[in-house]
Structures are given as C-alpha cells and as structure tokens.
C-alpha cells in the first residue's frame, strides 16, 4: 500500500515535471532544424510560472463552465497519465482504469475544453471547438482500432498487461501488426496533440488555428493549467507509443537500479519520438482542414490492416 502510494506520487511528479521539458525540446529542436535559435528547452517552465502569477481577464459572457474547464481538463489528463505505465510496468492506477478508460478520460477533458471554447460567445472559440471535436471524432476509430489490435494480441485491455505481454517472448520488432498499429497511432498522436499536418501549435492565425482558437479567451492561471494539460497529454500519448510498442527497459521490479535504467530508456524513447515529430513538422506543410480526414482515414486503414495481419499471421 505504502509503496503503491509512493509510486503514485512519483509518477504524478514525473508527469508534472517532464511534460514541459518535452514540449520545450520539441520547440527548440524545431527551431534548430529551421535555422533559428528558438526558445530554450526550459522556456515552458518559465511560461507556466509566468502565467500562474498573472492577473486573469474573464469574459463577461462566460459561465461557471469556463472556470471549471481548466480544472476538469487538468485533472482528467493527469488521471489518464496515472493509468499509463511509464517507468515501471505496473501503472499506479492500472486497477482503476484500462486503455478504454484512458481514452475516455482524454475525451472527457476534450469535451470540457470544447465547451470552454464556446462559452465566451466568441466566433473563434466556436470555430476551434467545432474543428477540435470533428478531428478527434475522425481520429477516435483509428486510435481505438490500433489499441484493439494490441489489446487482442495481449489478451487484455489493461495497459500494464499490454506492456507485459509486449515484453514477453511473442513480441517481435517486425511483427507487421505492431508496425502498422504503431504507424496508425503515430498519425493519431499528431492529430491529438495538434501537430503540424493537422494543426499548427505556433500560429494565431484565425482561419487555421484549432487548439489555440478554443483557448483564446483564457489567461493567467487557467491558461497555465490548459497549456500544462496539453503538454502532459502529449507526454502521455508519447509514452503510450514508446512503452507499448517498444517495451525495452521498462522496470518490472521496484529496485532503484532498474528504475534508474528504466528512466534513461524512457527518456531516450521519448526524445526519439519527439525528434520524429519535429522531423514531420519541419518537412510537412499544414494540411487544409478538409484534407485532414484523408490523413486520419489513412490511419484508420493502417489500423485495420494491422488487425487483418493479426488475423492472417496468428
């Protein structure tokens, strides 16, 4: 009991502390690739601290939904993060929720995020909410189908069990089902975290922004919570890709040495994924909104092929 509580607190701190760094790295590397100096990798921490200290302006049209949203989003994202095995194969909340609950909690946060966008009566917010809900709706089947493929192979929807099964002898790096499901999930990752072919995190241009449009009316500590949630969500989704598909190095016991090794592996995998995202962002242009469904249907087809190959090769 005590060790579980410790693991929980440790993972909570890891989520809170690591997420801004990951966002900072992505921003910094992206600038480097584009021959700019870019912000320091620590910049998101300073941003968060600055937002937390700032005064807030709240729209006169907003209701309690607007004020409740950052908390709901932040906490649901953290809860989803606590269900994801990170350093140790057993996630702190693995009994309380499986992969489906994980997806559900992210959806809960998004539901309120979109409502928060509609609340201040601005057309930007509505535009952002509408697009966010549309894109996530199209991404959802691909996400679920890819998770199903892995879950069926593992015989469980419990994320820790999926990881353990992936660590087992049946796992092969070039298992076609895994490769295809990974590709599908990578596309979903780009869509869910608002990355370039789908959304541009760096723009505030009215006609193209999605995530930024929804949170245009937010300021001060609410904005801090929203930005922090967004980076935690990115960390958690990357952890899903890193740990379920490349379960190397994840600790199965509670010794300091294996946990330390696991942390190194984990960071390495995360940074590799972040580098992949940066590469995609730099080498691609943002898609027109109505081209995004094509990309996401490609993800769905990849996931369906993954499933089919499970059927063929089992």
């Amino acid at each position, binding site marked *: 009991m005590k060790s579980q509580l410790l693991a929980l607190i440790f993972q909570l701190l890891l989520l809170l502390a690591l997420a801004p760094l990951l966002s900072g790295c992505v921003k910094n590397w992206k600038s480097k690739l584009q021959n700019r100096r870019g912000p320091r990798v620590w910049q998101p921490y300073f941003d968060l601290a600055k937002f937390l200290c700032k005064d807030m302006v709240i729209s006169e049209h907003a209701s309690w939904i607007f004020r409740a949203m950052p908390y709901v989003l932040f906490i649901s994202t953290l809860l989803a993060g606590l269900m994801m095995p990170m350093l140790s194969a057993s996630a702190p909340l693995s009994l309380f929720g499986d992969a489906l609950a994980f997806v559900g909690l992210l959806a*809960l946060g998004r539901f309120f995020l979109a409502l928060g966008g509609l609340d201040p009566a601005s057309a930007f917010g509505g535009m952002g909410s509408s697009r966010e809900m549309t894109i996530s709706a199209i991404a959802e089947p691909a996400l679920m189908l890819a998770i199903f493929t892995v879950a069926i192979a593992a015989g469980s929807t419990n994320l820790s069990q999926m990881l353990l099964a992936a660590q087992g002898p049946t796992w092969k790096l070039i298992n076609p089902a895994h490769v295809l499901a990974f590709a599908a999930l990578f596309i979903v990752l780009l869509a869910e975290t608002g990355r370039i072919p789908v959304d541009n995190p760096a723009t505030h241009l009215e006609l193209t922004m999605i995530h930024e449009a929804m949170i245009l009316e937010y300021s001060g500590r609410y904005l801090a919570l929203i930005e922090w949630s967004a980076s935690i969500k990115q960390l958690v989704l990357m952890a899903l890709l890193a740990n379920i598909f490349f379960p190397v190095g994840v600790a199965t016991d509670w010794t300091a040495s294996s946990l330390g090794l696991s942390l190194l592996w984990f960071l390495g995998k995360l940074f590799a994924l972040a580098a992949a995202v940066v590469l995609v962002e730099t080498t691609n242009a943002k898609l027109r909104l109505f081209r995004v469904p094509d990309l996401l249907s490609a993800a769905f087809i990849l996931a369906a092929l993954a499933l089919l190959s499970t059927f063929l090769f089992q």
Partner: protein
Amino acid sequence: MDSLSSVLLLKAALCIYGVGIVGSLAALRRERIANVVGFGSATVAAVCGILAAVLALTVEQGLGGSFELWPSLIPYVKLTVKLDPLSAFFVLIVSVLALAVSIYSFGYVRGFYGRKNVGVLGAFYNALLLATTLVFTASNAFFFLIAWEIMALTAYCLISFEHEKAETRSGGVLFFIMSHIGTGCLILGFLLLFQASGDYSFDSFRAVGHTMSPARRDAAFLLFLIGFGVKAGIVPLHIWLPMAHPVAPSNASALLSGVLIKTGIYGLTRVLFDFMGTPPNWWGVTVLTIGTISAVLGVLYALMEHDLKRLLAYHSIENIGIILMGLGAALMFLHTNHPVLATLALIAGLYHTINHGIFKALLFLGAGAVLHSTHTRNMEEMGGLIKRMPKTAFCFLIGAVAISALPPLNGFISEWLTYQSLLQGFGTTGSLVRLMFPLSGAMLALTGALAAACFVKAFGVTFLAQPRSEHAAHAREASPTMILGMGLFVAACVFLGLFPTTFLTLFDPLTQQLTGQQLSAQLTVANGLALANTQAQGGTVSTLSIALMGICLLPVPLVLWLFFGRHARTRIGPTWDCGLRGLTPHMEYTATGFSKPIRMIFKALFRPRREVQREYDYSPYFATTIRFESHIEEAFVTSIYRPLNRAILRLSRRMRALQAGSIQAYLIYIFITLLLLLMFAL
C-alpha cells in the same frame, strides 16, 4: 404463488395506473385536480413498480410469480401476467422513468392550463404506462399483442396531443402506420410459433422454439426483427422516430424515447434469447450489423439537427444501435457456444438499455424545460440559458456527459462492457467473421466521439454564450418539481456510473434465466471496487476510484495557485472582438456552423442542398442582402420511402378503377370471388 409480495406490488401498481386513468377522466374539467390525481397516481404506481421489480430481482430471485389479470372465457386467450426476471428488469426501467417523469410532469403540464385538456393528457399518460408495464409482463402472445396495441394507440394519442399543428399530425400518422406494419409482422411471427406449439402461452413457445425447422425459425427471426425493430427504431425502419418523438409533449417524449422504444429491445430479447434456443450464426451477424449501422447513422443525422428534440430523437436511434451491438454479439457467442461471453454481451446491451432510458429521459426533460421557457425547439434561437436556468443547465450537462459515454458516468460503463465483449469476441471463432468484432468496436468509438461532438454542440449552443433571441434572453428557471424530476435522473446517472458492481447483482437472476450463467461475481474485483471483464489479467475499471482520485488531485492546481498566484487578481472584461465595437449574438458560432466540418466530411452521405441568394449594388463582394438555405434529407426517405409511397399511391389510383360505383360491377366481383374460392376449396 399469489402470496409473493412482488406480485402484490405489481398488482397494486397496475390498479393505481387504472385509478389514474379514471381519476384524470373524472376530473376533466378541473385541470388542477386532474394534474394532481393523474400524475400523483402515476408517481405512486411507479414506486410500487420499482419495489416489485427490485424484490423480484433480489429477494425472490427468479421465482417468477404469475397471475391471471382477468379470468378469460375465450380459449387460448389467457390474460396471464408473469413477473420473471427479464420482465422484472424492464418493469424496473419503466417504473424508474415513470417516477421521475411523473414528478416532473406536475410542474410541466401547468404550461397547458387553459390551452389543452390536462385530464386527457393524464389519462393517456397513465394508460401508456399501464400498457407498457403489461407488455413487459404479459406471458401470453395474444395478451401481449393486445397490450402492445393499446400501448401503440395511447402513444399515438400522446404524440398527437397538440394536434392543431400540422407537423404533429403528420408525425403521429407516420408513427401510426409504421407501428402497425410492425404489429403485422409480430402477429405473423407469433402465428408461426403458435403453429408449432398449439398454444399462445410463452411457456409453450419456450418449449418448441428450438425444435422448429430451420426455415421456420429463420422466417420467425426476420418477422420479429422487423416487428420489434420498427418499434425500436433500427435503421432503416427508423424514419418515424425523429418525426414523432419531438412533437409530443416533453414528458411524453421522455417516456417514448426512454421506454417505448425499449419494448422493441424487450421483445427481441424475449424471443431470441428466451424462446429460440441456439441461434444460427447469421442472426447474430445481422443484429450486430444493424446495430452498428444504426449507431453510426443515428449519431451522424443527429449532428445535422438544430431542433433540440429531433436531435435527441436521432440519438435514440444511435443508442438502440449500441444496445443491439451487445445483443448481436451475444447471439454470435451463443452460436459458438461461449455462454459466459454471451452473458457479458447481453449484460452490456441490457445495461445500456437502462442507461439510455435514464439519460435520454433526462435530456428530453431538460429540453422540455427549455422549450417551456423559450417556446422554441430551434437551438439557433437559444443561448445563454445557463445563467437564466442554471439548475436545468446542470442537469442537461450531466445527461450530455453520460450519453457521450464519458467516465465516470453510466454511459461509459455500458459502452465499456460492450467494448470488452466485442474485443473478447475476436478469439471465439476462427473464421473471417471475427474481424467484425473489433471493426464494430471501432465504429462504436466513432459513434461515441461523434456523440460527444454532438452534445458539445447541443449544450454549447443551447446553454452557453449570449442569448440569440428575445425569448432566450427572458427565459426563466423551471419549476421545483421539474427540477426534482430531473434531479432524480441525475442521481440515477451518478449511481449507475459510480456503483456498477452493486447494480450488476440485479442481472444475476436474469442471466440465469436466459443463458444459465451468473456473472456478477466474475465481473467484480477488489471487493466490488472495480469492474472486470471475466478474463484473468483482463482490463478493469473503477469509476468510483477515478472520481475519488480526481477529487484527491484537485489540491494540485490549487496549491500551485496559492504558491504562485497569491497576488493575481481576476477581472471581468469583454470577449475579444478584434477591435469591433462589441460582439452581438449574430457573431456567435451557430449549431449549423458547428457541424459544418462533419457535414463536409460526410458529404456523400448527407448530400446537402444549399441555396444562396445574394443581392448587391455594384460589386459581388459587397452584398447588400444574403439569403442562405441549407437542407438535408435522409437518403432513406428520398431513395426508399418516397418512391415506395409514390408506388403505393399509384397502385391505389389503379385500384380505384375497380371501384366504379356501379352496383352491377360489384356483384360481378362478388361472384368471381365466390367462384375462385370454390375452385380453391375443391
């Protein structure tokens, strides 16, 4: 058997509904008394019904007391009422809904004072509940059909209650026609069973269901699927549902969408799981496919609506689809002889049945409260209601979260069970059919995400931002009894969401009856804290712990705020308006605009027609007036029902030539018919 207290309570409930009918009619001219008598007796009867059902499902597990409603003189026709576990479960659904909706009605029907006759409404309302309870408990096909027909007729009367509007009349008539097509199929189906058993009692059907020849069983399956499917609103037999449910008074809409379409689910469960024995594979495949299609199409059409009640009606089609996914998977597992999995899928479907009843009734009641105070069903004329009707808004939000299958509320639990049964289905068979399970799971995910988008739209446009019309700006909070009615449903959503393991024990006698399994112990781990999926090392979920953990995490942002933001102040200011002189409600995102991306993506399905007229003085870029119209018609209506309708009309016109009005011609017809009959007899 007569001494069973559940049976006594059921009798009491039936009698009190009867008292409600007579009492409301007796007080026709005193609308206040009619209100109290009509909905008061429905409330009391509903409490009796809940107690009866819970007793039958817990203390008197599976004893299934029965009695004769009326000693019948006609052979075969016995008015047997039997409260077996399946009946008790559905009586529970109808009674829970009746309780909260009746309490809501006390306040709601005051809006009809002086305009419409409340006594008539109360009488039909009680009659509908009485007939529905009898449908769920009748144990004789003849009696079942009588109750079914009374239910359809009272539902028709409730739908047509505001018959001065043309829209209401056409919706009612469409319901009437479709409902009778369904009943026709049911009569044929029961006759097939009667032919085999020689009796109309359900017990005799149960005895012969599995001994019938395959062709007859298949025919019976199709007839029942169509017959009950019409009532449930499966695609493509659903077209009456979005026409008829929205035009009824909102308390009746809640019952129609919450309970009435569940009679179709009850009928399918009764016939397919109770009577028919082991099903062939294609039954399950058909039901699963229909369920998947209904779910996806239902939510897609719901997204295109900006009429709040029509939107909810389309969501009923979606949810019936989700229920059928569970039932279809259960049939497939029965075929491959996996009783435990079949039970899991059946529980998933039935859990979703009660969940949908509760949150859909909640949403209809919320829509009714909004309608009551804004006098419009058009979402584009609402907005800002959360400040004017905060309690209604909160209740509607809970319903919206629940129907979007978000944790920790009840919709999530039943969809979780559905996902689990579909996922495990992959291992049950070696054939290509098994790919259906995860693919329907993916479609379920699409449905859930689209439903979330739809309810962001419905809640956001209706309740948030600035009011878009005068009516919305002057809306007032609903009356206390209406809030109480909705509050009961909110409590039910929370209970079914947070304590699924407690509720699951009620399913034990039911599944014992239908599949011979009891799963509540296997579906529970950690002393009832978490819900499991019958697999060892399988996925578990505990909504209660998620909710508690969320509350425990609440200090994290608060501590940060105390640490950093002690000196930060909060100011109320205008929304960013790009330097204009102020935002008007016209600049807000509309419901139609919100769903535009979806409309564009699924353009091939919706085939939207749009008409833009612009007038300009000197340059087309500076229009003086713009008129925009956009229509979506369902593909089923335009490509199936309308041609069918035209064909029938054409045929009837041809037939009219026969009816020339001359008596000589008619005499010849009679003579020819007689000759033909004689030849046939010889």
